[in-house]
């Protein structure tokens, strides 16, 4: 039908490809087919979903968001009552709990991971071997198994509150959780915080001044010691001047349970422990690979210039290793955040357990609830990777 113009053209200019054999035309055809297949699939899915949802009496809107939830959550960072709080509030509680465990998990996993990664590189045979065993055992068993182990095999058989395990610093561990002293801040404690803020800014200023001084006069200031003194000393001074406005509410055994202090639920302890120990093994491998990626010539050259070992590590090896370490490290932080969804197996009230579990079961609004849950994780992931891309671009520019 439309081949007529092409036929005419080929008579006047012989060696011209007919358009149905041209690359662009074939590409366009394939893409059009793909696009229409995709659109058809989407349309069919939405059509089926609306038919099926109506047939099953499942809500199709977000009206449930403001209806009262009517269930209880044991660990809440914001006030939540089964009588008055809405499903939307339950979402907030779950999201905050996820972020809480992810925040502390990332801190513990980083510290542990760096230590173990360095231990694996140690010239001490025994330390390196122990670190290797740790990494291999943790990495080759499922996280879920480790979580269940901590929760059911370690924390559950703990004694009841009367026979609590007593840890130094008025900390008690029993089958109801971990009881730690709670800090009570008095009037004037905000001075200490202000002092801390000022100390941090002052340290930064000292660092910049020291850098300029070194370039101009080659004089070296002990920046680390000065900053340490500022950050510890200034808040301590403010704290003492304000009359030490801090007291502790220690947990005490009253009858069958503890009064005072903060109760950390065993679910939280198990999840935090499992996530940080698991992620630490992966971080250790990243750190090891990062340090090994710095070529030997770099540290040899630094030694030849007479840098002592501490400064060699701080100025030559670590900055170059960090460039390799940070992108996969960010990935591990994201993995930890996503893995915190395994909370649902041990009953820690995170986003998935509260929202995609209880709320979904009560409202039946599967499509809406799952979409919102996925969107939350997706936003966290995309924001982090956007930040990572920015960082990478800066690092790549600094390289050459």
């Amino acid at each position: 039908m439309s081949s007529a113009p092409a036929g005419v053209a080929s008579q006047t200019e012989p060696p011209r490809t007919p358009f149905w054999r041209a690359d662009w035309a074939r590409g366009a055809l394939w893409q059009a087919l793909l696009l229409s297949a995709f659109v058809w699939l989407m349309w069919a899915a939405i059509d089926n979903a609306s038919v099926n949802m109506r047939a099953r009496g499942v809500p199709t809107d977000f009206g449930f968001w403001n209806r009262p939830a009517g269930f209880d959550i044991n660990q809440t960072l914001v006030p939540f009552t089964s009588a008055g709080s809405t499903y939307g509030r339950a979402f907030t509680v779950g999201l905050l709990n996820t972020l809480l465990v992810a925040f502390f998990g990332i801190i513990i996993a980083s510290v542990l991971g760096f230590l173990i990664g360095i231990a694996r590189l140690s010239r001490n045979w025994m330390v390196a071997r122990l670190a290797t065993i740790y990494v291999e055992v943790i990495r080759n068993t499922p996280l879920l198994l480790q979580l269940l182990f901590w929760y059911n095999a370690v924390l559950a058989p703990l004694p009841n509150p009367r026979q609590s395990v007593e840890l130094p610093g008025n900390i008690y561990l029993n089958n109801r959780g971990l009881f730690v002293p709670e800090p009570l801040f008095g009037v004037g404690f905000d001075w200490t915080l202000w002092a801390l803020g000022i100390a941090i800014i002052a340290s930064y200023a000292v660092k910049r001044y020291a850098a300029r001084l070194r370039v101009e006069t080659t004089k070296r200031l002990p920046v680390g010691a000065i900053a340490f003194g500022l950050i510890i000393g200034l808040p301590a001074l403010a704290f003492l001047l304000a009359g030490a406005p801090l007291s502790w509410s220690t947990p005490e055994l009253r009858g069958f349970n503890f009064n005072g202090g903060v109760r950390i639920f065993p679910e939280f302890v198990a999840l935090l422990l499992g996530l940080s120990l698991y992620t630490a093994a992966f971080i250790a491998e990243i750190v090891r690979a990062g340090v090994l990626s710095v070529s030997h010539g770099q540290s040899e050259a630094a030694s030849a210039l007479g840098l002592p070992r501490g400064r060699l590590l701080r100025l030559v090896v670590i900055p170059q290793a960090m460039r390799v370490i940070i992108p996969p490290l960010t990935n591990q932080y994201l993995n930890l955040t996503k893995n915190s969804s395994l909370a649902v197996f041990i009953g820690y009230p995170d986003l998935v357990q509260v929202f995609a579990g209880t709320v979904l079961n009560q409202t039946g609004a599967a499509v809406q609830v799952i979409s919102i849950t996925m969107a939350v994780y997706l936003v966290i992931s995309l924001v982090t990777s956007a930040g990572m891309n920015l960082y990478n671009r800066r690092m790549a520019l600094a390289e050459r």
Partner: protein
Amino acid sequence: MSDMASPVSSARQVSVRQDIVPRTFVRSQVSPDLPPPLAVGGVIGWMRDNLFSSVLTSSLTLLSIAFLIWALPDLVRWLFIDAIWSAPDGDACRAPGAGACWAYVNAKLEFFAYGSYPRDMVWRVDLTLLIGAGLAAWLLWPSAKHKAAALVLFLVVYPVIAFHLLHGLGPGLRATLSLLADLFGSKPLADVAANSLPVVGTNLWGGVFVSLLVATVGIVVSLPLGVLLALGRRSKAPVARFLCVMLIEIVRGVPLITVLFMANTMLPLFVPEQWSPDRLMRPLIGVALFASVYMAEVVRGGLQAVPKGQFEGAMALGMSWWAMMRLIILPQALTIVIPGVVNSFIALFKDTTLVAIVGIFDFLRAVDTARLDPVWAGPTISATGYVFAATFYFVFCFGMSRYSMMMERRLTRGRSH
């Protein structure tokens, strides 16, 4: 070193002057090396180098030894010496001071392996696993012949056989088969339709074989689908690239649990009522999708690592896009990413434990359920079960990683210089 060189040089000097002084004593052989000083070689030297080279190292060594003395004896006692190896029920294991209760693992072994699969038909599971193991060994054995045939058997024939063995043919399939037999007048087809094994519903499936099934399906689907998605992501066609990027980034950005929830609750809504997938099929789809997008990223890394000259060379030879990919690019790209592929297989195998959230009775779920059995319940039962499960997963995952290291060495042997 200098004391090794001197006898040689003096011997040479002497041999030159031999005609002048004929009867001098000359040692004709190099004197044997003395053993190195005790502090350098041998066990003590090794310990000085590797355990006590400085104050810090020595204190770390002592700390490690202290840790081992603190942990190891208790661990060995709990695992082996105080362990209960055989008992009719949980009484012996509940006694104070008892270690791991291996008797419980022994009693529950069938449940761990097959779940609630009818006990008189577990030969069907065994046979399926045996065929699968045989085919896998054929595929993985480095110097085996006819791997293409093994691949076809594994990917096309084996799933059919496995479905027939594990599930059996339902009435609908059986009717279709006999209809086909009538149509073609085929005797063997009619036989199959008439003598099919009784159906065992997926609600009875459980244990190790379900874990292996989920992992196998994930691996078998994710490799080709991952390659396709990676090619799509690298393609110049904007629609294909956009769709692939969207799928990959969305699925990679969310936890597997939410994908499983979606497969379980949303998938049945998206298809017509009569097509609603089986309860085991839904998590299988979820796991396969999840594994595919991670595989796609691994393969993409390999595609990016193939030098541009390879693409240009293939194009200069006038190859079509598919021929170029199949014959030139993918073989190189996939060789580069073998470690990454195995890593994602290991991750997938560990992730199969999550299917328990949608009610699938995998191995870990079986272990986690069996510990509640009142006949056995006791303080050490949970730990025993988990240690057993951990050993199982460790053997598989560690074995996979060692196999990939070996293959990597073999494949890069001719390339390194």
